[in-house]
């Protein structure tokens, strides 16, 4: 009772005091529509619903009924997790938090009318819209590859059936065969992701197919935790992994899915598995909404509002915000800032300064975990990094094991923060 009253008063104060409030009196509860039920969207929906205790009407639009987290999907490839253990459903968001979960695609956004249209034909009105659609791939980024080739040459950069397929292909490699990864250019989701994947693939091959080879063609001269990965690869997998940066033509790549060949700097390589991770851009709905600048949707870090339309907040991989890497941790962190800002805007709760953090763990081999983390704050220009740390080369086995165990705790924590 007391809570309801407070929420009600908060709403009136917010309305009366603000000139620019977009709310319309007499229309009932303010409405928030969230597109995308991943790390950003699910967290934001849950925090808004939980915090506002029914004062805000929250609808979550997500086409899939089961969300497979990309985080820990590499551990599934390595045999450290089952597929079921990275699968999550939306039941609790509906039953425990009163979120209206709609399993459909958002296909259009009318920014003037403030409505989202769905593939099924429905139109959802909103007072604030959150877009957290993750990534799509840039057409033509890797010559010879497009999404129609993804069954021959999987990306496995959206988790689920793609990850299963890649795992099956790795397990079916002939003795002494070649797994090739085409690594993506910056910026892309999860900076250490491709290199953690290579570690996990090597872990599987070392057991099943120890004479197999791993080849990485990389357009970047340098990648996150590079020294840690290289040390780990040397320690665990000897000479199995060959990394070709741009100095060795890693940026001049062409693939042929029919022949299963990869041409690197003019030299043709026959491969058995080809894991193409193309250049990325914001999920297509951002483009359709007309809020992109180039490949990504720029936002202000104070509230995660689009710089082009203040009624839209963009979270996670899809937004251009500054210094935060595109990670599940970042998306989750940004979602909480957006949830706070949206509640303040719609129901007059308090607005606090935005704080963000991120930590990315990577598994190099059994019980050998490393991490990199940082804290960030919003300036008017961007989200700026203020402090951070990284695991060191040569750390003790005990510390590496503790780091891995921490990542298990984090996985349990973030998924319950997303799905309740």
């Amino acid at each position, binding site marked *: 009772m007391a809570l309801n009253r407070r929420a009600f008063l908060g709403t009136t104060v917010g309305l009366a005091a*603000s*000139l*620019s*409030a977009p709310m319309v009196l007499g229309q009932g509860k303010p409405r928030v529509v969230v597109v995308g039920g991943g790390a950003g969207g699910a967290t934001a929906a849950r*925090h808004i619903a939980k915090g506002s205790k029914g004062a805000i009407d929250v609808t979550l639009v997500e086409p899939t009924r089961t969300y497979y987290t990309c985080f820990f999907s590499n551990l599934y490839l390595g045999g450290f997790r089952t597929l079921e253990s990275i699968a999550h459903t939306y039941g609790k968001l509906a039953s425990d938090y009163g979120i209206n979960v709609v399993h459909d695609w958002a296909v259009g956004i009318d920014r003037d009318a403030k409505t989202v249209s769905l593939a099924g034909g429905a139109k959802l009105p909103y007072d604030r819209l959150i877009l957290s659609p993750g990534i799509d791939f840039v057409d033509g980024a890797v010559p010879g590859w497009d999404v129609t080739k993804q069954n021959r040459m999987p990306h496995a950069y959206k988790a689920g059936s793609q990850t299963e397929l890649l795992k099956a292909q790795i397990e079916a490699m002939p003795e002494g065969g070649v797994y090739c990864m085409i690594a993506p250019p910056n*910026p892309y989701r999860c*900076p250490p992701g491709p290199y953690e994947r290579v570690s996990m693939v090597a872990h599987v091959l070392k057991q099943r197919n120890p004479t197999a080879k791993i080849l990485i063609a990389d357009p970047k001269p*340098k990648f*996150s*935790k590079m020294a840690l990965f290289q040390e780990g690869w040397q320690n665990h997998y000897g000479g199995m992994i060959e990394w070709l940066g741009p100095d060795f033509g890693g940026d001049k790549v062409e693939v042929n899915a029919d022949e299963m060949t990869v041409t690197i700097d003019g030299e043709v390589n026959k491969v058995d598995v080809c894991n193409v991770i193309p250049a990325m851009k914001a999920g297509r709905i951002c483009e359709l909404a007309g809020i992109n600048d180039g490949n990504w949707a720029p936002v*202000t870090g*104070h*509230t995660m*509002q689009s*710089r082009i339309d203040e009624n839209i907040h963009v979270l996670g991989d899809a937004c251009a915000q*500054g*210094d935060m*890497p*595109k990670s599940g*941790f970042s998306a*989750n*962190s940004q979602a*909480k800032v957006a*949830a706070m800002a949206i509640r*303040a805007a719609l129901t*007059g*709760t*308090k*607005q606090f*300064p935005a*704080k963000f*953090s991120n*930590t990315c763990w990577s598994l190099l081999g059994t019980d050998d975990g490393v991490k*990199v*983390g*940082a*804290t960030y*704050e*919003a*300036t008017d*220009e*961007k989200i*700026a*990094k*203020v*402090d*951070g*740390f*990284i695991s060191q080369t040569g750390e003790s086995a005990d510390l590496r094991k503790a780091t891995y*165990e*921490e*990542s*298990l*705790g*984090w996985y*349990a*924590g*973030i998924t*319950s*923060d997303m799905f309740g």
Partner: protein
Amino acid sequence: MHAIFLRGILAAFVAFSGSAATGAAADELIGDAERGAKVFEKCKSCHAVGPDARHKVGPHLNGVFGRKAAGLGDFDYSRAMRRAGADGLVWTIEKLEAYLENPKVLVTGTNMRFRGLKDKQDRLDVMAYLRQFSDRPRDIPEAEPTAITEEVRLSDDILNIEGDPDYGEYLSSECMTCHQTDGDDEGIPSIVGWPTEDFVIAMHAYKQKVRPHPVMQMMAGRLGNEEIAALAAYFSALN
């Protein structure tokens, strides 16, 4: 465009919330990169930056942030600079600022014949300019910061909310990415239902780096006393 829109948003903050975060001293970007480009005119006779930069009298300054001093194999550094690098001098914001203020103070035998930049703003601005030619934290998360940390200081309005459950709840949302509300402690310890005093002591031990652990040192490092108190109150009430 952006600036106007931003101001609109800030105005909205004030309107929407009784005790808005108007007085919060947000961390500042290192400096103004555009001004820094002008300050760099003073370095240009000896240093180049950018895609085609080569060594001149001094080494090129691409990728200098986060690099060990005397870290480029193909430049002939002074012995003093090489020794400093071997001793562990890395070009962080703080170390660069000290070097640019007075090169001889940080590396006594350096052969950079430059008196230094006496004006702090000049140093910050030239660093902001140079920062653009080093790794971006977005791509390489461990890259050096782009902003300077300040002790979080909040306006009186906010200070008065000590123990405010709303503030404690907001701050705690950041902790729940790792620590679980239900007190599960797989891999990461539970922090719910602690006596507030133990909680405050543990957080200050991390903040002062008495207690080791890089994640928690970083998380606690940017919390003020009131914030730690608000968190302690919030978590002790959870069960």
